[in-house]
């Protein structure tokens, strides 16, 4: 056996917070001590700050950004961030071009009109044509298969395109199909339609005064985070969705933990046969496969007509969520009952209420607080998951989960539609996880969290 060797490596500085902990002055209340320990941890503080920001953004945001999240702007479908585009007022009318070709026959297809309401194309007629097929691309075609969206066909040498037009470059290809089944592609036509809005539509949406006429311009509302497939403002929907997600994510665990605490408290304090039966029942609920029953319950509770589906989501989460905290609280009580100081207090004639308030509550509160901060991410995830498989909240309500689900389908063309709600979910979950960590350290609680 060699003698003791200490090397410099064997010593290390105590971590920052450990040093601080020892400086906590005696005589402070329990919660004051906890706060002292909590606030020295930068991660905890950061998470608290993030969460405060998120919550106040979601709550106060609508006061600043007052667009209606349900307002549909068909003129501005699926746009990326923009600060208010200028559109020209038009009044779409039925197009009935003269059957005879124009006097000067255009050599190649020409656009007679190009707005986002309609693009009118005309070309010189060819002999023995069965149909003219119309294709629209967003760049120059590379080969004969690469002609773009098939729009339809026309038997006359003109076509009006109204399909999903945006103010961007389009390349139209007219393919003439002859009666002998051969096909010839006409020279391509490049068009960038002007952003337009129907006069009646603009009036209806209160964008222009009654006196406005066709040809006037109007500035459309700005959409800092873009719009969705129906032209609804993403920022407004994100704020609305946040209220739903955070409401579900906070209220469900709160109620579940509260109910569980009462249940566990009763079981623990009563003890005996009642305790056993009560806890057995809680164990049954814990044994249910969570996601499966979440789905089942969600479908079972259903969403009535006109309901937004938040209540069923809350209920399902509460029904499945309460037993965990019931177990925790009961465990704490059983532990405390064996503590000498409690027995001493009892001997000294302390009544139950005093015991509950002085010893039990602070201890239990700590555990519950930590349990809560880990239950919140779980609830937020459950909401997102259910939305992903189509069991989320219903319009006009929306949630971050529902928004991510919608964004998933646009991940390639409009990635921010997924990015924003997913980032909000992640930030919130991250915040609560870190907060939970910090709280646990500060409260110095040894506990088992369930697998994520």
């Amino acid at each position, binding site marked *: 056996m060699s003698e003791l060797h200490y090397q410099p490596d064997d010593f290390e500085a105590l971590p920052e917070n450990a040093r601080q902990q020892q400086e906590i002055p005696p005589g402070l209340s329990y919660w004051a001590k906890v706060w002292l320990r909590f606030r020295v941890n930068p991660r905890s503080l950061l998470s608290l700050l993030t969460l405060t920001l998120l919550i106040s953004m979601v709550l106060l945001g609508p006061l600043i950004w007052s667009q209606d999240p349900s307002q549909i702007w068909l003129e501005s479908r699926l746009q990326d961030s923009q600060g208010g585009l200028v559109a020209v007022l038009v009044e779409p009318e039925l197009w009935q071009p003269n059957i005879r070709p124009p006097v000067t026959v255009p050599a190649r297809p020409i656009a007679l009109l190009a707005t986002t309401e309609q693009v009118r194309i005309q070309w010189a007629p060819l002999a023995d044509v069965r149909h003219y097929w119309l294709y629209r691309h967003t760049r120059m075609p590379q080969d004969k298969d690469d002609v773009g969206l098939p729009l339809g066909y026309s038997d006359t040498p003109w076509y009006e395109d109204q399909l999903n037009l945006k103010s961007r470059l389009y390349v139209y290809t007219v393919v003439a199909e002859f009666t002998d089944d051969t096909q010839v592609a006409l020279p391509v036509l490049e068009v960038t339609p002007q952003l337009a809005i129907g006069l009646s539509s603009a009036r209806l949406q209160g964008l222009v005064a009654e006196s406005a006429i066709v040809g006037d311009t109007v500035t459309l509302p700005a959409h800092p985070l873009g719009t969705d497939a129906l032209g609804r403002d993403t920022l407004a929907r994100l704020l609305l969705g946040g209220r739903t997600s955070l409401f579900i994510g906070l209220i469900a665990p709160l109620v579940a933990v509260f109910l569980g605490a009462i249940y566990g408290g009763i079981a623990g304090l009563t003890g005996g046969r009642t305790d056993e039966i009560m806890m057995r029942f809680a164990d049954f609920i814990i*044994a*249910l496969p969570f996601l499966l029953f979440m789905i*089942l319950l969600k479908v079972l509770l259903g969403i009535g007509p006109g309901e937004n589906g938040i209540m069923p989501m809350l209920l399902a989460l509460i029904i499945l969520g309460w037993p965990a905290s019931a177990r925790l609280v009961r465990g704490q009580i059983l532990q405390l009952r064996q503590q000498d100081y409690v027995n001493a207090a009892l001997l000294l004639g302390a009544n139950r209420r005093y015991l509950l308030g002085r010893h039990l509550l602070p201890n239990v509160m700590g555990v519950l607080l930590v349990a809560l901060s880990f239950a919140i991410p779980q609830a937020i*995830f459950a909401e997102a998951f259910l939305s992903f*498989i189509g069991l989320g909240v219903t319009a006009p309500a929306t949630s971050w989960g529902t928004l991510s*689900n919608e964004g*998933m389908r646009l991940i390639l063309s409009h990635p921010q539609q997924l990015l924003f709600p997913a980032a909000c*979910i992640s930030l919130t979950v991250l915040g609560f996880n870190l907060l939970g960590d910090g709280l646990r350290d500060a409260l110095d609680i040894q506990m088992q969290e369930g697998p*994520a």
Partner: protein
Amino acid sequence: MGLYILKRCLYGLVTVWFIATATFFAMHALPGDPLAEDKAVSPEIRRNLEQYYGLDKPLYQQYARYLSNMARGDLGVSFTQKNRSVNDIVAEHFPVSAALGCLSLLFAALGGVLWGGLAARFRNRWPDNLIMLCVILFISVPGFVLAALAQLSIVEINRWLGWTLLPVAGWGSLAHMWVPSIVLGLATMAYLARLTRASLLENSQQEYLRMARAKGLSRRRIFWHHELRNALLPVVTVLGPAVAAVTTGGFVVELIFAIPGLGRYFVQAVQQLDYTVIMGTTVFYGAFLVLMVLLADIVYGLVDPRVSLAEADHV
């Protein structure tokens, strides 16, 4: 010990009965009509179908038949997969979910211990901070986002390479399994990494380590032989529930990667109101979960001499 296991098994059976009953009544309270088709079903056909599935009997008779069939291990005939029994469906698709789950758990356990160990080894220095940041990010991003991003990356990598490095979706070979199981395991891995780190840090204050250090054992040897080994105990305990969580939690990954697992069937069955498949799958998963927790408790009792199984019952 034997008595304890027997008691636990009995208790497990009661739990399974509870799950079966809860599912049965939840099922029959579900709004909707399992026999509805896209096109209207004439009253004649409807009556014939109800007879075929026994839905014309009173509820208590259906319940009795359901329980007695289940006791015999017969989960019934699917409503949508008209000529397959639920037993067939479970037998065929559970192994897929299980394979996916096991692989992802293996990945999660190895990765979790590795990263957790590394983080603890470099505690409070930059590798620790970096690892813990990644870990907490993995816990914080929803699974379906991770899965979609992973799939997209495969496509882009394949296109960039010009040949198929990894299949985009589907099932059948080992190559199909890597990405889905990694995605599925990430959250568990992150969780295990945190657990391992915390457990290591806690253990590092223990007397026996001071003793070992005092004996002059090399740092590396102490870390791998003493610290890590003991720190892994709590990791073992959560593996049971983790197996269940990972096996039953693969819906999203199964949906996105087109994997014929049981989870996908369950979601489909709920949407199509396939009574028998919903009940069969839930009961099967419930039983599986109960079994896993039981096994984990027993294993823990065997591994850790400080825990007496008989006592564990009361906590």
